[in-house]
């Protein structure tokens, strides 16, 4: 287990190294801090002096080492746009994104496990076929389109029925179908402050209503994948000899499904799924854009729009760190759940 841990840690450091080199290369080639600091009017000789003073004329790797040393202190310089340390800008936007990802993850876990397991246990039931059909449609809808449709349906509302809407049945049907003026669709509303830069949508009912549509949109991208993955793995496990043997022992089907089979199903699901949850951060860029959710994704897109290179670089480093941490955690959880890891030192 110790060897396993060290190996994972080494891998994580390696990945962070690669990311930092890329991030530094971007900063080195695209960002010109002098331009930002002093503007156009300063003569070239003064700029050159400043450049020398800041060490911008040093060799690439010397500059990289300086960058890396600062990065370990979470010091990535100042944002051009906000005129404050980039880490502070990110920290301000981080809670919104993490809450969104967290809410979406809860939705995914709560829905995909029962649906996936059900459609594996009863593959021929019409409900399973229905779930499979919906999931392949779900895979085919881009996340921003789901978001737009949700806004149209639940925030703007539809009051469209093929019946005349004047009186009687038509009006009644229209009233039934209409969802006009339902959910809030833009921004975070008024989140409750917790501490520091952290304020939460989970503390009030109103805050939660702001979270509903963005979280559903974000979850919709991974939910079908998870359902299909869980179903496929479970179907395979149910064919296995050990499930057959458990039946021959006279164990109840419930115990076979939910202990014998589910535990084995979840092993590959944890590895694949854990990584996918990490990548939800990437999809927040799209969801946050549609819902004007004031998180890191929206901030990142804005930074691209305004060529705020230090902020872009910081975002890449922070997101890289989030990915690395989730991946390492996933491996740890896998190691804890899977008894075969302890001896061999690597997943079997």
């Amino acid at each position, binding site marked *: 287990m110790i060897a396993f841990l060290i190996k994972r840690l080494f891998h994580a450091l390696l990945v962070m190294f690669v990311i930092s080199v890329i991030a530094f290369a971007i900063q080195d080639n695209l960002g010109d801090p002098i331009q930002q600091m002093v503007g156009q009017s300063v003569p070239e000789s003064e700029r050159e002096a400043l450049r020398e003073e800041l060490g911008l004329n040093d060799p690439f790797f010397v500059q990289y080492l300086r960058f890396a040393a600062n990065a370990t202190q979470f010091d990535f310089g100042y944002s051009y746009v906000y005129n404050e340390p980039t880490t502070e800008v990110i920290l301000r936007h981080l809670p919104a994104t993490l809450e969104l990802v967290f809410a979406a993850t809860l939705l995914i876990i709560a829905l995909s496990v029962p649906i996936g397991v059900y459609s594996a246990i009863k593959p021929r039931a019409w409900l399973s076929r229905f779930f499979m059909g919906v999931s392949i449609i779900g895979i085919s809808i881009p996340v921003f389109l789901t978001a737009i449709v949700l806004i149209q349906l639940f925030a703007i509302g539809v009051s469209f029925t093929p019946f005349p809407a004047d009186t009687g049945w038509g009006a009644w049907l229209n009233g039934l179908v209409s969802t006009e003026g339902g959910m809030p669709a833009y921004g975070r509303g008024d989140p409750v402050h917790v501490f520091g830069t952290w304020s939460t949508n989970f503390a009030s009912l109103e805050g939660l209503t702001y979270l509903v549509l963005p979280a559903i949109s974000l979850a919709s991208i991974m939910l079908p994948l998870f359902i299909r993955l869980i179903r496929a793995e479970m179907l395979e496990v149910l064919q296995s000899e*050990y499930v057959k043997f458990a*039946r*021959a022992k006279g164990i109840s089907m419930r115990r076979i499904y939910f202990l014998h089979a589910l535990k084995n199903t979840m092993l590959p699901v944890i590895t694949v799924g854990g990584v996918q949850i990490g990548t939800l951060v990437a999809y927040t860029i799209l969801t946050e854009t549609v819902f004007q959710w004031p998180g890191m994704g929206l901030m990142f897109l804005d930074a691209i729009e305004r060529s705020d290179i230090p902020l872009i670089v910081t975002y890449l480093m922070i997101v890289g760190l989030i990915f690395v941490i989730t991946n390492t955690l996933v491996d740890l959880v896998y190691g804890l759940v899977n008894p075969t890891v302890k001896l061999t030192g690597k997943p079997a």
Partner: protein
Amino acid sequence: MALLDVNHLDVRFALRQGDVKALRDVCFSLDRGERLGIVGESGAGKSVAAFSLLNLIAKPGYIAGGSITFDGLELTGLSDRQLRKVRGHRISMIFQDPMMTLNPVLSIGEQMVECLKAHRRISSREARAISLRKLEQVQIPSPEKRLDQYPHELSGGMRQRIIIAIALLLDPDIIIADEPTTALDVTIQAEIMALLLELCEKHNVGLILITHDLGVVSQVTQRMLVMYAGRVIEQGPTREIINDPQHPYTQGLINALPQMATPGERLNQIRGSMPSLSQLPSGCPFHPRCDFATRQDGSERSRCKTEVPAFVSSGNCQVACHMVAEMQDAERIEVREENS
């Protein structure tokens, strides 16, 4: 009445192209404490027969007809819940590949205790104590330690011992062992087989041993069935069949044993291969491979191609073969002629 009575068992697999008949008209019985061998090539239906006894055939397989009576209880019509009381409790099973049979993510102890608890109202502590005793019976070194270990920490031979211990947990009446030693190293095979035999004798447990190894059958069992293409073609006391096989197929099997060949010569093998169950030949399923489908004088025995042979008695054995039936008729005529 026998402990287990199987009559005219029919098992089919519902495939898109139509039903495939995996077992046809299988009849046999087993007395308390008796050991029965079921022999045949792979695909003959041995395993299907074993699994259908407890209705454990994988879908799309199903029991299409016949009866299985165990200790006065008819098993074929039972619901899964009712069958569960028999499975692992009064009839338990040992599977072929010990590497695949135990759940990799549950400890040995969990897998033993759950079996006890499924059938008896006992505390975990008691269940653990019984499990330990059974592990001692199958002669596993340091059994206490094994309870907390996971399958991947144990060798194949150890795992098969544990599976035998699980099969014995609830002191069953019958153990069905489906090729219990095929997947093991040759050196361990004999050990495991000896252990199984010893335990069955000691506790008076009936054994249905499925195997293609005629040597094992002759050492372990008292009676045997020979199966071919989903049918029983010969059955009777093991010793009689091994010493004097009647059915051409059984003769072929025994002739194919390495010890039957002259050293330096090729092994004797049965020509051709077993037909697929979906494309069975008409009449006797063995006739395309049978050297006796043509009589010695060169004339064809047309019944072999058109009619499924019925069982005829030969000594204590029963044989389904037209050739045997014809020879018996001829003998009877001869005897009658001599007498007259």
